[in-house]
Structures are given as C-alpha cells and as structure tokens.
C-alpha cells in the first residue's frame, strides 16, 4: 500500500549518526600525510604594507610553506560580484590574500602550512609585515559622510551603492496625512555564529590534475565554479563536498572565502592534503557579519491610524567589501510594507564601506531589519494617535479578499512581492487570543500601582521564501531496489535528507529506508545554487517531487510493457507496480530498474535507467507569514526583562514534516531573541573588534529562551506543486520587534521608546530614567 509521508512528523534519518558520534564534520576529515594551515590576519583596520618577511617562520622545523599574495598570481584576482545592483557606484570585492593593503582587522594576509596546527599557529607569530596603519572608517554614519577616511583609496566616497525604489504616489500620501512620524531606527551589528566554525580540507591528485575539497559551505556547486576558475582548472577537475555541517544560517555561503581558495591552492602547490579549521576568534573577525543599518523614516498616517505612506532613507553597513552587493538592503526595502496595505512607499539606501568585516546575509538577510523598522513604526504611530498596537495593525492589514495583493515591491531574486494564500487578520486574532493580550492590558493599571511593569508586544512578519534561481534533484531507482536521490544543495541541520525522503518515498510508494539521499557533493549532482533564503523545501522539494513523478511515469510505462497492461490500469505500491485489483500481477521497481539497463536494446534518442532529474524555479517565490507575540515583565531596578509568554502564529503552507517545521521556528526565534537582547558586535574607534569570544558575544542559553507556543496555520501555497512556503527564517525575523513592543508597553508610564536593538539592561534603565532613548 502507499503510505502517506508528506505531512507526517517522521523521525529524522540524519540523527543516528549524529547522536552516536559517527557523523563526519569538517575537522573529522582525516587524510594520510595531511598538513595543517593557519591564516595570518591583519591586526589593523586600515594599513598598507610592502613586505612580508616569512624567513623566521620558514626556518621553524615543521613549517612547509608560507603563501602570500605574490605566490597566488592570477588566483588572487578579485572575487566575483554576485549581485549587480543598478545603483552601484564603486563595487569592490575581496581577494584571497590582501595585496599590499588591508581593510579590516581579520583580513587574510598570508597562509602558513605546517605539520600541525599548533606549529602553523606558532609560525604566524614569526611573520613580520611592515604595516603602515592609516585612519579607519568605522562608524557607519560617519563613514557615509564626505570627508572622512576612505576604505578604498581609489574611490571618492565610501558609498558603494545608492538605490531608490518608489511604490505609489509618496508626495500625495504625505500631503494627505493628519500625522507624520519621524524617527531613526537602528538594528545593530551581530553575527550568525553557528556552533561549528568554518573549515576546508583539500587533496590534490597530481596524476589526474584534480582537486577534492571538503568545505563547510552552503553552496558547494557554486563554490566549485569560483574555485575552478581561480585555480585555472576545469570545473570537472574540482569536486566540492559539503560534509556534515554544524549550522550555517547564511555565514557559510560566500563565493568564496579566502580559505576556500587558499587551501586547495596550497594542497596543489605542496602536493599534500591540507586542512584548515577556523577557531572561534577567527570566526568573529574572519567570517562575515550582519545586521547594522540606520533607518531614518517618515510615516504618513490618518487620524484613525491608516498608514498612507512610508519614506525610509537608510544606511547599510557593507563592511570592507561588497561582493554580495547590497543584498540585505534590497531585502529590507522589499519587505518594508510588511503585511500592510500601504499605498505609497519610498525607500532609498546607501550601502557604505567601513573598515570592518564583510557583511552578508544572516538568517533573514535584511528582513529582520526592515521588519523591525515597520513594526516599531506601527507601535509608535499607534501611541502618538492614542490607538492600540493590535488595532492599528488590524486596520492596515491586507485581507484575504484583497488577494492577490501586489505590494509593488521587488524581492531578492527579482521576485515580485505579491500577497496571497494567507489570512493575516486571522493570524492576528489567534496571536492576540493566545497571548491574552486584552487580559494583559486590563491588568496593567493595577499592576503598575504595585510596581509591576508588564507589557505585551506583537509583531507581524512576511517573508520572501523559495526565491530564484533554481535547484535540481535526480531520482534514480537502482537494480538493488534502493532509490538514490542526489541534489546540489546541502544541509546544515535542516533535515533535508528526511524531507526529501518523505517526498520521494511517498511519490514512488517505497519504504523510506530504501531511499538514499546524497546532497552537497558536486560529483554526485552538479547543478543548483545553494541552501539559503528559506528556499530548500520550496525549490528543492518541488524539484524532488518533479523528478520522482517522472520516475513514476517511467516505471508505469516499463511495467506496462512487462505486464502487457495499460499504464492507467497500474498502480505503485510497496516498491512495485501492480495491476489494479490484481496485486499478484506485479513487477518490482528493482526489476524494472534492471530491465531499464538497455545493454543491447537502446533505441536512438532513449535514455537508459529508471531515473529522472527535474529542475525547479519558482518565479513568484512563496510568501510565508505570521505573528509573534510576547508578554514581558521589566524589573525597573535592574533593567532585566523576564519573558513570561511567547507565542508564534505562522503559516508556512503545507508542512512536509511538522516536527522539523517546529524546530526551525523554535531555533529561529531563539536567534531572534539573541538579537533582541544579547548579541552585539562592537568595535573601537580604530576598528579593533571588542567582541571576539562567547564571553562577550552572548548567545542565549536554555535559561534565557522561554517556552514558545506555536500555532500552525497551513494555507496551501498556490505557486508550487507541494503547496509549501519556506520556514527557515520566519522565526528570526520578527522577534526583535515583538520584544521592542512588549518592553515599550511595559514601560509606557516612563514614555519609553525603543529605537534600537539589542535591548540590554543599561539601555532599558536609560529609558526608565529618561536619560535617553535606547
């Protein structure tokens, strides 16, 4: 019989290896005769140098090589520009090793290869570089202004890119307004910080002139292309394998990090396997950051709380280079109207170079920023007009009967942001009910008399998911009866092997145990883009469904010949094709796969094997949505915030595996809570990073994350065959805004207004004491 698997909370196929210590993460890759590398990083945020003296390092026994920019030659050409925003003025991308000038503390300057990692690190201390430090551009606002230090001396401004986007008639909107809110909002700088740092292992095969690279990347197929190009090799000569990867969240996709090129370069140069494992301090300074933007907004509203228009001029801290283009800024401006019917939206941004590590997407990619701006503005307009924060949202929501509602905004991947397949008013009603929002509000006057400051906050999110480009999946039934599923997009813990198995096993009516999934190996499947932007289920899942359906059709055709029965009279069940109503007349998929090897019978134009590949691209993506609600109590003596209740109402369409969906929401929300209260990267005025350990960068523990109550709404997405919307980032996007609203509500007697996150206790005390707004 056919077992339903899509939609079931099946246990994960990945877990047994992970639980028993048999998984293979990057540092578990051990090759015989392997050397170990360490990276010399710039100690200055801005400096020039002319000479790297590695003589003492090379004299250290066990040191095999010190590689500088001069050794790399053509391999050190600038990395590709991945996103050509039309507003680019000065696109500048990084190189593997800095050629004579460094632009942030942590930038790679040289690579040491030695017999052990300990020795390689010893050698770093023996390398002398004649740095001539210069003034650094560190503060985003100052860096954007003319006249200060330049990050790139061949430009006349630190503004990398200036872009405007206009929806509707913004001037008329403001002319018609009864009230205009003006304020500056600042989501601060943070980082993904997966528990496993990055790492690369490379092995060169001189006899074939090929390189195999194990790489903690979210995009092995794309990385292969860049690495092959830089090394002057055919793509066919380069294999990139993403092993088990210990969390990604965006930071492990960059095309490419210096080490992804340097390690294969060194392996080829020395003709020995080379391993590099990033340590945590390196991860803080040598891997990408996210978050800091400064938004100056104006919101036009009517007296009864209808939002007529938003103007948002914002600065986006790009870090020292801009290889991703202003991708986070694009996403922030695209989702700015949120789930609301806002007739006119005008956004302008400047992506600004600073002498700090490169900024690239982290879970949500600019959407947490745009979301914070809109949701904070909703709260502030409501307060100014004497309206309730839930009520003002209700009055502005896109309603099901309005859909499809084109927001006029264009999201990442050139995807139009069109609302459909969701019920925002119902989401709000559920959240308000689950939170006992009215009860909290009713209790406030009496509680405040007793010195208890409790508040409720709500924040919507809409998230662009399932974006372009495409992914592909190959499904192949083996004569052994196994069903081999191969794809290019890798997993960093999302459970793709389980969800892909559910899709393929149900479609082919085979036992899940018969399905073997391989992902993230360019030698198994070399088409696709990568795992990011909540797209694997939508794009990769749909491709898996397409491939499995094509295999099913082939199986029916083959069985039809074998059994001499018309295909429409056949059915798949239990790993075989049966005649309907006569299950004893059957042929197994294994036998069909065997028969599909046309050793002597291949006809012109035919393809051998019981296999198919399918490729999927979702031109309109899929919008996920939901509401987060929080009830907090603020201790006005200490500034500490206790989270009493946290509610998530979400709609990610059909859930392939509800347990995995819940895991994504819970984990994303915890990261959002980190960004709301704890996690902030700081630099001194010279660009020295002040936060380089987990003692300074406070990732929430089990004590800080409250129990989270999830309410699923499963509105089928009409844009893809599975009916799914992505779920990877929705947890992280609205958490900061929900807390900002709850803290403001709790501290309403003090007139507190939250305009920046994270909300640490000193910021909260300052609001209470009226010394400053956060």
């Amino acid at each position: 019989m056919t077992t339903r698997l899509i939609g079931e909370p099946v246990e994960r196929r990945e877990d047994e290896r992970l639980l028993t210590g048999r998984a293979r993460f990057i540092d578990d890759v051990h090759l015989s005769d392997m050397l170990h590398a360490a990276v010399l990083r710039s100690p200055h945020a801005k400096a020039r140098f002319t000479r790297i003296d590695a003589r003492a390092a090379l004299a250290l026994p066990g040191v095999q090589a010190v590689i500088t920019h001069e050794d790399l030659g053509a391999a050190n050409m600038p990395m590709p520009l991945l996103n050509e925003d039309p507003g680019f003025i000065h696109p500048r991308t990084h190189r593997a090793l800095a050629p004579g000038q460094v632009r942030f503390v942590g930038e790679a300057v040289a690579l040491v290869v030695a017999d052990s990692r300990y020795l390689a690190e010893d050698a770093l201390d023996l390398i002398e570089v004649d740095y001539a430090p210069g003034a650094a551009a560190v503060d985003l606002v100052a860096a954007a202004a003319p006249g200060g230090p330049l990050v790139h001396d061949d430009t006349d401004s630190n503004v990398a890119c200036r872009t405007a986007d206009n929806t509707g008639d913004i001037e008329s909107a403001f002319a018609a307004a009864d009230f205009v809110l003006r304020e500056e909002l600042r989501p601060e700088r943070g980082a993904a910080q997966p528990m496993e740092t990055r790492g690369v292992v490379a092995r060169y095969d001189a006899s074939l002139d090929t390189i195999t690279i194990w790489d903690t990347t979210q995009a092995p197929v794309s990385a292969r292309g860049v690495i092959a190009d830089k090394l002057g090799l055919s793509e066919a000569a380069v294999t990139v394998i993403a092993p088990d990867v210990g969390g990604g969240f965006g930071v492990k996709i960059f095309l490419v990090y210096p080490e992804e090129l340097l390690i294969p370069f060194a392996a080829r140069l020395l003709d020995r396997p080379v391993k590099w494992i990033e340590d945590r301090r390196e991860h803080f300074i040598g891997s990408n950051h996210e978050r800091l933007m400064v938004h100056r907004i104006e919101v036009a509203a009517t007296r009864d709380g209808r939002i007529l228009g938003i103007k948002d001029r914002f600065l986006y801290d790009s870090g020292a280079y801009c290889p991703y283009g202003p991708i986070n800024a694009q996403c922030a401006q695209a989702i700015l109207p949120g789930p609301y019917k806002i007739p006119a939206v005008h956004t302008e941004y400047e992506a600004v170079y600073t002498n700090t590590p490169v900024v690239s997407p982290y879970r949500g990619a600019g959407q947490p920023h745009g979301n914070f701006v809109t949701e904070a503005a909703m709260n502030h307009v409501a307060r100014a007009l004497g309206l309730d924060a839930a009520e003002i949202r209700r009055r502005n929501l896109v309603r099901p009967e309005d859909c499809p509602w084109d927001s006029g905004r264009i999201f990442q991947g050139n995807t139009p942001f069109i609302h459909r397949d969701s019920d925002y008013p119902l989401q709000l009603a559920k959240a308000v009910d689950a939170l006992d929002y009215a009860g909290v509000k009713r209790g406030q006057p009496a509680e405040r008399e007793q010195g208890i400051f409790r508040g409720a906050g709500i924040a919507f999110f809409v998230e662009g998911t399932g974006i372009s480009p495409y992914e592909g999946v190959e499904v192949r039934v083996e004569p052994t009866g196994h069903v081999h599923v191969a794809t290019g997009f890798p997993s960093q813990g999302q459970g793709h092997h389980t969800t892909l198995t559910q899709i393929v096993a149900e479609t082919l009516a085979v036992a899940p145990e018969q399905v073997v999934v391989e992902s993230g190996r360019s030698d198994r499947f070399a088409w696709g883009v990568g795992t990011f932007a909540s797209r694997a289920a939508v794009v990769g899942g749909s491709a898996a469904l397409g491939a499995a359906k094509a295999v099913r059709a082939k199986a029916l055709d083959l069985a039809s010949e074998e059994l001499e029965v018309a295909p429409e009279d056949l059915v798949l069940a239990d790993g075989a094709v049966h005649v309907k109503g006569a299950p004893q007349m059957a042929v197994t998929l294994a036998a069909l796969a065997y028969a599909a090897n046309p050793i002597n019978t291949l006809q012109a134009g035919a393809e051998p094997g019981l296999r198919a590949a399918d490729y999927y691209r979702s031109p309109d993506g899929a919008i996920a949505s939901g509401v987060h609600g929080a009830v907090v109590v603020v201790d006005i003596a200490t500034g500490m915030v206790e989270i009493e209740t946290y509610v998530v109402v979400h709609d990610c369409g059909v859930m392939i595996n509800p347990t995995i969906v819940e895991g994504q929401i819970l984990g994303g929300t915890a990261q959002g809570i980190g960004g709301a209260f704890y996690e902030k990267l700081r630099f001194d005025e010279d660009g020295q990073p002040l936060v380089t350990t987990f003692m300074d960068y406070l990732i929430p523990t089990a004590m800080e994350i409250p129990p989270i109550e999830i309410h699923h709404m499963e509105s089928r997405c009409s844009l893809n065959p599975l009916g799914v919307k992505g779920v990877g980032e929705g947890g992280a996007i609205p958490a900061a805004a929900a807390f900002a609203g709850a803290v403001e509500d709790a501290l309403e007697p003090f007139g507190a207004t939250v305009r920046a996150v994270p909300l640490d206790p000193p910021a909260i005390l300052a609001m209470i004491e009226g010394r400053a707004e956060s």
Partner: protein
Amino acid sequence: MADHGHPVRVTINGEAHERSVEPRLLLSDFIRHEARLTGTHVGCEHGVCGACTVLLEGAPVRSCLMFAVQADGASIETVESLADGETLHPLQEAFRREHGLQCGYCTPGILMTLKPFLAANPAPSDTEIRQALSGNLCRCTGYQQIVAAVRRAAAMLRGEEP
C-alpha cells in the same frame, strides 16, 4: 604532532590509549586527533560552548580547557560510549524522538553533560533541566525540543516509558 616526550596514558571508553605528546596539547585534540574519536566536537576552545564536554572520572569537563597531560591516568567517557552496539542510549533515543538536535554539532557535549545529571537527578523539573543545559550552547534548536528530550529520557531511564 612531534614527539616531545611527555607520556599520557588514559582510558577512553574502556580502551587504553598511550601517547607521547607536547604538554600544550589540549585534551580535546588528544581525543579527536590522537585517539581518533571525533564524536567530541570543539566549538569555541575557550570553555563557553560546552560542545567538547566529556566525562573525566564520571564528571563532565570541558576537554578544550584541559591539557592531555593533565588527564594522565584518568578514565574518560565520550559520546561514542553511550550506545550499546546498535541500541541507542535512552538519551540518544529520546533526542531522536523529540527532534532534540538539528545540525548535531553541540549534541555530543549536551549528551555527556546530561548523563551524570540524570543519574543524580532522575526526575528533574523543566527548570532544573534548563539549568543543567545552561552551560551548553545550541544555535539551532532554541532548546525547547532538547528540554522535551531530556524529560523523555528521564522517564525512559526511570522505566516509565519504553
């Protein structure tokens, strides 16, 4: 690693390992790269994240904060010791059933932290579970499904659940 003449003899998961190592070699590196037991993971190398937690004479320690030479003569247990052949330990089984792991990188350290915790406290409250977990960072799960897994594992170890 070159031989620098400092002998270390430890028992890991019941098996004797003897090496001559540099005094600066971390215990975590000894376990992973000398004994080749790579189930123990390294997340921060400064004692905060807890991913490298192993049992030293039955007590949880951060193997990145000890030198291998300090463990000379000791008995160590790592995540590889938990399962009995093909049969998962109740903690492992409970983590699988409750989706208590995603990327699985922090998981071995969490399991090794919890084994002595549940031995000492067979019926913990959720607050006690969260306190026990508070020295281990997880970036994927938000901890809720881990708490549920620990609750289930405790019940399994008490014989109240299969």
